[in-house]
């Protein structure tokens, strides 16, 4: 027994050493790369950072949905990204077709905020419905079953997007006031600021709900131990539904913001962005709210820098960079930046 323990200890130490060395080498290389780029063109550096951060804020909204659901029922909700896509398509139809707004005006602002409320409630409703009909029955089944179901739901949502939006990408006019301003060579579009201005309160509201309210307490209790929570009189089914509603609402809001700031919708949008958002959630430590936001900002920044810097791999390698980070993280630090190591429940 002691021999095994010793071998295990030695391996663990060696592993930790290897991780630390690789980690430091990677950080030195990254810092080197950033410095060179910064010296070469500071304005481009800041420009890329700002684009990256504004993407990161959007990723944060989606990543929170992943992390909430994973935190409570340990399911990677593959359909979450597609819910975001449906949110974007819904917003486009709501603003441009049902209300016919295609440029900025006071009325358009009204429609915009009406749309925000509608898209959040519709997405929340859809997500709750998905949980009720597809995932609830499989809650105690082996992991493989709900995961495959989630992939199936993702395909069904993509089908809805395909029927609704058409097979190609569609472009839309934004109702947010256009324009941009410049600070020492770095141009910042107003839409970026609006995106941040809408996202931040949502994030704060979310954190408040989870950490300060009674319902949030029930969520945290259910995440820790469903059976114990049930014994304490918490309605576990309703709490899980509420979690899905929260995640769905955030995905819907992200859909609206994406559609308005990029002016683009397409049925396969959710798959790519969903994966990126999931990577962010993992990077921050899945299950941790602050971690998801931090991870999303970092991933957005990395992507922005990689796409926009003079010495970089460029946009065509964007996916590869993000997924390589995902794989490396999984291999060396599956708990993420802020996650706590957990022992698997047996």
């Amino acid at each position, binding site marked *: 027994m002691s021999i095994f323990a010793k071998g295990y200890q030695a391996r663990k130490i060696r592993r930790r050493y290897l991780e630390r060395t690789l980690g430091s080498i990677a950080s030195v290389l990254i810092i080197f790369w950033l410095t060179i780029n910064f010296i070469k063109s500071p304005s481009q550096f800041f420009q890329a950072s700002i684009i990256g951060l504004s993407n990161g804020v959007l990723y944060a909204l989606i990543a929170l949905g992943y992390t909430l659901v994973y935190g409570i029922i340990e399911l990677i909700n593959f359909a979450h990204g597609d819910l975001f896509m449906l949110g974007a398509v819904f917003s486009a139809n709501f603003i441009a077709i049902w209300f016919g707004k295609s440029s900025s005006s006071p009325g358009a602002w009204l429609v915009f905020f009406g749309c925000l409320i509608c898209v959040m409630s519709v997405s929340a409703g859809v997500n709750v419905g998905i949980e009720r009909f597809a995932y609830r029955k499989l809650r*105690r089944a*082996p*992991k493989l079953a709900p995961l*495959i179901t989630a992939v199936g739901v*993702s395909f069904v949502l993509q*089908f809805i997007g395909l029927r609704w939006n058409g*097979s190609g990408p569609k472009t839309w006019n934004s109702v947010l006031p256009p324009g941009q301003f410049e600070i020492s060579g770095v141009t910042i579009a107003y839409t970026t600021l609006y995106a941040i201005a809408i996202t931040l309160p949502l994030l704060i509201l979310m954190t408040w709900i989870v950490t300060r309210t009674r319902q949030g307490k029930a969520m945290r209790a259910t995440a820790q131990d469903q*059976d114990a929570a049930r014994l304490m009189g918490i309605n576990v089914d309703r709490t899980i539904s509420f979690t899905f509603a929260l995640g769905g609402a955030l995905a819907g809001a992200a859909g609206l913001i994406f559609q308005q700031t990029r002016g683009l919708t397409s049925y396969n949008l959710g798959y790519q962005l969903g994966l990126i958002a999931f990577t962010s959630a993992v990077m921050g430590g899945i299950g941790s709210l602050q971690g998801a936001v931090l991870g999303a900002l970092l991933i957005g920044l990395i992507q922005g820098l990689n796409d926009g810097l003079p010495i970089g791999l460029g946009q065509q*390698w964007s996916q*590869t960079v993000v997924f390589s980070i995902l794989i490396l993280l999984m291999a060396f630090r599956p708990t993420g930046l802020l996650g706590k190591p957990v022992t698997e429940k047996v």
Partner: protein
Amino acid sequence: MAIKLRVGKAKKEKAVKKSTSQKQWTIGFLIAAVIIWTFYTFIMYRLPFDIQQVFQHWLPPTTVNEALVWVICALGLNIVVGYAGLLDLGFVAFWAIGGYSAGWFMSSFFRQVNVHVLSTAKAESPGIHISFWGVIFIGGLICAAFGIIIGAPTLRLKSDYLALVTLGFGEIIPQVFTNGENIAGFNMSNGTKGISPVDNIGVPGKALGPFDFSWKFFIFALLTAMMIFVSLRLRKGRLGRAWLAIREDELAASMMGVPLMRTKLAAYAVGAFTGGIGGVAFATHVNGVFADRFNFSISIILLAMVVLGGMGNVWGVMVGALLVAWVNSTGLPSLGELVNTTFNLNINFPSYNFLLFGGVLILMMLFKREGMIPESRLKAILHEADDTSSNLGGHH
């Protein structure tokens, strides 16, 4: 005591019977393949024109061949998902790597060199030309190596994390091939243009034309038969039993002395090897490799085949793969055409395949988790949680 003995004997007899049955099954499959081959090669052209048309419309030879490639890959995925219980959502990566091994070693792509090994290509044509039979192994080995590289650091992870890593891998590899036109000045994959044509299957002196479907069918059927045999053999052997043990309870398996990492890696490597064979076969089927064909939906279609047919059951997976491949390539368009002309409608049926595959995955998981032709042991596990009346426990 006597009863016990008798039970033991019966079990032994059953085991003996089972070990011969795998050969019987494989031979049975081969006989069926020969019948189909004879039909397409000799009988079909003698049939009246109308009946020929029906076959060309509903079951053209190219669909049959493509379905066999899907079967090969689905059997590979079945080893990973069905036997070892590791969810792999990036199987397309192995398909792509297999395809590009065919592109590299069976075409005039690398014009800088001139290597010929038992190839059907003309001796003066530049590039690396290795016989199809060799490239199958090369492609398989490259895939197996990638399977181990991606598996080694990540197989410690929980099952859902593993699914994500494989998914990421399945995204990276096709992008590498799409952007591979200029990697530090080296053209690795010819980018989106792809590599075409590849050499024909055959032996030196006798090559099959690119449209020689009936002989290709025969070769693909041979490969499939080999895969069926290997799958059944592995399932019965030490490694297969170790896989099943891991699938059913990882902790218990490791306590019983099953080396987890090595066994899981073996599942990955064997699955990847098969994916490589499928990739090479597919490249010869479409006479080239094209980067944009390798996307996530291939991984999902393969998964749907395995789930629909019955995870872990070779016959189930085969039937599932044939059915899904047929529906995808011929069934849905042809059926749609039939419905549209009879009822005078105008519905674009192939556009419904997202709904079809998604719906199949959801409904199968909700109502028939074990698939159409279930494997008895897996059925028991998948419904283990259903009949526990207590609310306690159940975390897996």
